Each structure stands twice: as C-alpha cells, then as structure tokens.
C-alpha cells in the first residue's frame, strides 16, 4: 500500500510551505530519514525526509508550488505499485470528443496544482469557505496565489462575474467599474476601463514622448518570497500596532575594540574563530537585559511576561529576505561559545538551513547595519517583544581627554526602539545606558 508524503507542519504558525526542490525523481529508491525534497516554510528552508523505505512512485506537487500543510505532495510505495486512483485526483483538464483534441491543451483556465488544489493563502481559504465560495471561482492576479483581498473583492462586487474577472486580470479593482446608476458593471465597462488604464499607464509612453533609445528599461515584477511575505505582514502589523519610541546614544568603544584585538590575537594561537564587535555588543546587551527585565519581555494581552531566559534574535539579511535566528541563553554563554554559535546561526540563515525551532522563542532582537556606515536607524520591533537594539557605525571622534587634551576615540552609535506600552522613557534610558556602560567598561564583557 502506497504511503503519502505530506507538506509537514514544521511550526505552530506554519499554514503552508513552498516546495523548493525535489531531491529525488519518480522511481528513485528512498530510505527512511533520507532527504527527498527541500521545503521552505515562512522562516526557513529545510529538508523533507522520507519516513519509510521504498520507491518514490509519484510526485504530485511540483517545485515552486505553495502547498498547505498536510496536503499530499508525493507517494512512496513498492516498485511497480501505483498511486491509489481515487486519491491521486490528477486534475488534468479533460475535454471531450475526438474532434476537440486541440482544446485539451487549451483548457487550462485556472492553474490548479496537480492534486486539484489552487494556490491560495490560508486567509483566502477561510474567507472563501465562510462565504460559501469555491476557490476556483475566485479570480486571482496573474501568477499569485489567491489572497484574502481577492476573495473580498469578489464577494462584494458590483460587476458581473465576467467583468470582475477581466478587471482583476488587468490589476483593476472591480469596485472601480461601478456605474453611477447602481447597475452592475458589465464586460464592456471592464474593457473600457482596461483600455483607459492602458492609455494612462506610464509604462506605455504617449506618442509625444520618445524614450531614450538603447536603454530598454521595462518594469519588472518581483514576487515576494515566502519569507518576505510573512516578514512583511509582521512588520506591517508591528508598525501599525505598537506606539514605538526610539532613543539614541553613542558609546565609547575604544577600549572594547582594543580588548577585542587582544582577545583575537590570543585566540588566534588556538582557533581561527574571531570575536566580532557584534558578539561583544550582543554580550553587553544580554547582561543589560539581565539588569533591566522589562526590556526582556513579551506583550501578553493586557500585560507583560518578563521572560526567564535571555534569547536574543540576531537579524540576518539573506537573499530570500530578513531572517532572525535566536541565540538562546545569550547571557550564559562563554564568549567563544557565543561567537561560535552566532557565526553558525548567521551562516545557516544565509544558506537558509535553519531549523524552525531556531527561529522561535526570541525575547529581544538586535539589528546591526553599522558596518555599512549607517550611524542611526530605528528598526521595527519584532512582536511580541518589547524592544530592539539598533547598532550603528563606529565613528572616530576627537574628545577631550582627562588632561584636557583632545584625544581620538572610537564612538559606537546605538539606538533603542521600544514599545511605549511596556516601558516608559526612564526605563528605556536605563536599559540603553546599561548597554553603553557595559561597552565602555570593556573588560566586563569577558567576565
């Protein structure tokens, strides 16, 4: 009996995943525990492992498809075995009549997955089901999964179904077709609106404007990756919901940088792993959080949970978007251990090889773009956390020394953005001053 391979639910929040690549072909033998595909969750790319020995007898969802969790993506069975027919439900568009063979290839109206499921966001599925509509009846924008907005537009459309579909395929809101007299907009209205929009479109110059020759620069559309989509939704929500305030300071990192050089010189005798400035800032931050528990908290309805552990999210830029792996128990790690783990997390984040649990459970986040010369910025809080530390550039400054003579110091820019509901200004200042103090008292960090 063939066994199905499903899109796993790899995290509490996971509702769908993207099949990145198949590592096995139909007919390949697979062993239990062997990676057969790569899947991308909202947070990471991971290997999908076979749960039994056998032959990969069918692949029902293709690389690049969005698949809801628990949906069948392949079948494993014995050699010569076939997929139970009733379950394969291959929705190949079938047209009837030998005279109309040609129509068969043309019958692809919507692009259902090969198990008949359409690409749609979970919210779209829920809304459609509440409205008693089939997903297939909802027009999606070309190349995109059906989303909640598509469903809403379709539900309260003042246009005929045909006009509605025509408008959406051209990126117009069917509601914009509405006639003044309250009657339903028809396909002719949609065609006119599409023609108008095409005329008004900046990508189609009017005859009076001649674009420079030799520079073909057309608009290109990039689809968000799964990570970018989820991150985007979270950032928007955070930005909309949190009354955030940012405060700024500069810390004198001259001593710390000197200490780092000595540490790395000494470590260089035994290890290639260098301690980065960021490692030291993370360390200072972890110790400051210990002393300022309100900054190491999560918002929980009408209260705060002061978290027992200090787990710091490290924002890492990757090709697929922002990733924030969690450095667990950052306050309890030795400096070498901390540096090793941070480097490993960052590297695997960039290679998108993090496990889902490595992306969860953060209590605070640090974002560092100082290496690009940015002095100050105000990152967005990673909900439900209450604060995020922005690490900026180091600037050489002349300051007055103890003897009244100007001396050159290396000044590190820091910002702290916090949820004003969870902390007030004094508390936030106390925390940032702690970080600054720990950085300036350089050797404390290695203790």
């Amino acid at each position, binding site marked *: 009996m063939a066994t199905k391979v499903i899109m796993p639910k790899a995290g509490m929040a996971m509702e769908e995943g993207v099949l990145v690549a198949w590592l096995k072909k139909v007919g390949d033998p697979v062993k239990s525990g062997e990676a057969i595909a790569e899947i991308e969750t909202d947070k990471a790319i991971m290997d999908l492992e076979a749960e039994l020995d056998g032959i990969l007898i069918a692949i029902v969802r293709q690389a690049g498809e969005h698949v809801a969790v628990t949906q069948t993506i392949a079948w494993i069975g014995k050699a010569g075995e076939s997929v139970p027919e009733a379950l394969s439900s291959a929705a*190949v568009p*079938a047209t009837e009549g030998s005279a109309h063979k040609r129509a068969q290839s043309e019958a692809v109206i919507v692009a259902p997955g090969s198990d008949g499921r359409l690409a749609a966001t979970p919210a779209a599925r829920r809304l459609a089901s509440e409205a008693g509509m089939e997903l297939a009846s909802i027009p999606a924008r070309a190349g995109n999964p059906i989303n909640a907005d598509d469903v809403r537009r379709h539900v309260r459309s003042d246009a005929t*179904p045909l006009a509605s579909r025509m408008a959406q395929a051209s990126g117009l809101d069917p509601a914009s077709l509405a006639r003044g007299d309250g009657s339903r907009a028809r396909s002719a209205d949609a065609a006119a609106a599409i023609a108008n929009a095409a005329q008004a479109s900046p990508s189609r110059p009017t005859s009076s404007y001649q674009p420079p020759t030799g520079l073909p620069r057309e608009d290109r559309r990039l689809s968000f990756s799964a990570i970018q989509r989820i991150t985007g939704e979270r950032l928007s929500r955070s930005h909309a919901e949190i009354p955030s305030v940012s405060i700024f300071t500069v810390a004198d990192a001259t001593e710390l940088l000197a200490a780092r050089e000595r540490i790395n010189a000494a470590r260089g005798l035994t290890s290639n792993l260098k301690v980065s400035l960021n490692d030291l800032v993370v360390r200072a931050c972890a110790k400051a959080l210990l002393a300022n528990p309100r900054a190491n908290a999560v918002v929980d309805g009408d209260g705060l949970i002061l978290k027992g552990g200090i787990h710091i999210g490290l924002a890492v830029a990757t090709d697929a978007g922002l990733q924030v792996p969690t450095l667990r128990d950052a306050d309890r790690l030795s400096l070498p251990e901390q540096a090793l783990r941070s480097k490993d997390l960052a590297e695997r984040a960039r290679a998108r090889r993090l496990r889902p649990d490595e992306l969860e459970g953060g209590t605070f986040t640090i974002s560092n773009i100082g290496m690009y010369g940015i002095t100050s910025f105000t990152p967005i809080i990673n909900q439900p956390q209450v604060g995020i530390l922005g690490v900026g550039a180091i600037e050489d400054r002349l300051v007055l020394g103890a003897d009244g003579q100007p001396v050159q110091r290396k000044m590190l820019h820091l910002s702290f953005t916090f949820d004003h509901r969870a902390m007030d200004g004094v508390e936030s200042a106390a925390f940032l001053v702690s970080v600054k103090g720990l950085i300036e008292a350089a050797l404390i960090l290695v203790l």
Partner: protein
Amino acid sequence: MRDEYDLIVVGGGPAGYVAALRAAQLGASVVLAERDVLGGTCLNRGCIPTKSYLQTAEAIQSAREWASRGLILDSPPRLDMKKALACKNQAVRRLTAGVKALLESRKVDIVRGNAVLVGSGRVEVEGSGILRAPSVILAGGSVSTRLPIPGADSPRVLLSEDILALDRVPGSLVVIGGGVIGVEIAQILSAFGSVVTIVELENRLLPTMEEDLSKAMAAALKKRGIIVHLGVSVRSIDDSGAGLALLLSDGTRVEAELALLSVGRRPDLSCLGDSGVAVERGCVVVDDFMATSLPGVFAPGDLNGRRMLAHAAFEMGEAAAHSALGHPRRAELDLVPSVVYGSPEAASVGLTEAEARTRCENVSIGLFPFAANGRALCSGDSEGFVKVLVDPRFGELLGVHIVGACASELINEAAILMRMEVTAFEIAEVAHAHPTRSEAFMEAVAAALGRCVHLPARG
C-alpha cells in the same frame, strides 16, 4: 377610433403587437393596422402551427417505442390528418384571439386593411383613410422566398404556409432547402408517413448553425428514414407526370408527389410605399434602436432582416416602442437563442466554434453527451449532446450548442447566464436537480473547465 395617435404600428405579428403593447404600457395612444389575422407568420403560418404538428409527430414516434416498454398497442397508430389540422387550427385560433384580447386590454385600436407609409407620421390604411401620429413603427414582416428554378411555379411546389394548410398527407415530399423550416417540416411529414427527401445547396443541413449540430441532425434524420442530399441544387422541376420529377445538379433524379420550397424568407416591403425609407439588399436599414432613415419611423422584426425569429422580433419590437416614444433602447440580439424543433431538437446561443476561434486565441470546449445523462437514458431518448465554448481567460461562456430532446428548453438557461455574464466557474458550481436533462449543460461547462466528474478521465 380617432385619426391622431401617439403611435401607429403597421403589422400585428410578433414585432408589431409587442411594440403596440409596450407602447401602450408606457402610456401612449396606439393604433395597430393588420391586413390579415393578428399574430403574424409565427402564430398563423410558422412557429405555432408547426409545434402543434410536431407534438403529433412525436406521439407517433414514441408509440413506436411503446412495445419496448411493455405497452402493447393492438394496431399501429394511424393519423387522421383532418383532426390533426383542426387541432392545430384551434391552437392557432386561441393564440391569435389571445393577442387580440391583449391589445384590447391595453386599449390599442386595431384597424383592418393593407397599410402603407405615405410620409413621416402618416399611414394610409386601405378602406380607413389616413392615420396620423408623431411616430410610426413598421412591422411588415416577411414572406417565403421563391427561387427562379424552371418549374418552381408548379402548383405542386408549395411554400411552408401552403403545406401547413394541407388536410392530407402526401405520399412523398421533396424539401428544397435544409434550413430550420425545411428540417422541421421534413420531420413532421416523415412521421406522418410521407417519404421525405431533403435537398440542400450547402454541404450541411442548418448551414447557419454550429457544424456539429448539423452533423448530428443529418444523422438523426437519416436514422428516421429521411433521405438527405447535401451540396446540390435543383436544376429543374418537371410536373408533367403523375408526380414531380426534380433534376439535381449532380444529375440525380428525385421523384415526389409534392415539393416544399423552404429556401428562406425575405422582408415584405409592401408597407413602405413610396416613402423613401432606405433599403439595402431587400432589407430596411435600421440602427440598433430600430430607427430607419426617416425620422420618426422605426422598423423592428423581419422587415430589417437582422434576425428572422419571433423572439428576436419581440426584443426588437420592445426596443422600437421605447425608441419611438423618446426613450431610445437598443435591441440586444447577440444572445438571442435559435432553435430547431423536432426530435431531436437543435438549439444554439452565442458564437459557433468557428466564430469563437476567430475571436479568441484559445477556446476551451466542453462536451457532454446525453448518453451519460440519467434522465435522458430513462426517457429512451439519449441522442445528442451539449457543447459549450468557453474563453479560458476569464471563463466567459462564448456559445452553447445543444442537440437532443428538450434542447429548446435547455438553451434558455444558457442564454440567461450568458446575458448576466455569469462565467463557467460559477455555473459549474450551481446544483442542478437530479435527474434532469439540464444537468448535461452544467456538466459540459464543468468539462470545459476540466472538472466534469461524470465523464471518464482523459489523457
């Protein structure tokens, strides 16, 4: 009766009487001139009388199948043509009387006599003098076309109106012209016992309809014993013998007692007089609002030659009434269904496959045979199919073509949905009562989307 009205309507057929009724509903004082019997070709010489006979023909055909259902008839049914004629005439009388009652209930004055337009706003009615109104609707209808074939003027070469008045069944009949009228009358007389031969100039029956319907219809007629000659014309008709002898262009000789000339209809322009209303190729020129070249003169129905169908005339008549009273309305003729009655019936709405392919880059076709429909199988009549044409871009239903029993009823669902611009995606989701023939339409739509569950998987 007065001599000044808001509107004069010439002709009491489907275009004229509907225009008069609608105008009266809108509050106009209306006079309608009719030279013959109210109801026009449709009620008196076309749609209605043929339907009465087709019902009789169907009864004869179904009686042939009774034995297989265990119903034993001691002797085969025989037709009393005089009674069939009387039955038909009674239906016609009731309906024409109904039209008269409707017009009277709306206070439309009816004037009998030949009516001719004598200038803007003036119509002369034979025996009643001149009627005046700011607007005139000409609904003069059409007459059967005669062809200049040598011998076609023989009294044994009948037009459709003549054959519907026969009180006996000819032993054999040649139908010249395999269009809608020819196919219907061929089926009637074949069932009544005539040996029927159809001669059609084009290489298929019903040349204006979807080609698949033509093929299915030809096959069905041949199965019922009707002889079909396609792609040939009639060279000459010789009535010097006991019967008629027709010489066809391919050299074939066909003999028959009578011939029916059903090669089409042409507008009856006699109501135009010398008024100067513009005419092109024998048809009155009108715009979508039914306005002619003369201000205040409108011409709905067969007179303009746009669609020679009673229900198209209803639509044009209503549009003309609105336009004539200063509320211009377009006649929507794109989605007017066309139907051929009989067993089987053929019905179409929208584009044919050939038309659809010139309009759309891709056309998705859904086909559902009645042989896979439970209701059709139980009825013993599972001939035919539903064919739908869908534009895969948005699921727009481009055309629906049905051949089989009840096609004339099924086509209306398609016409409604197409007019409302409901797409294939929505239609495929509508629950249809089971078992009904209507399910076949929904299944064909689903097939066009590649998701018909009641057909075996393909490819």
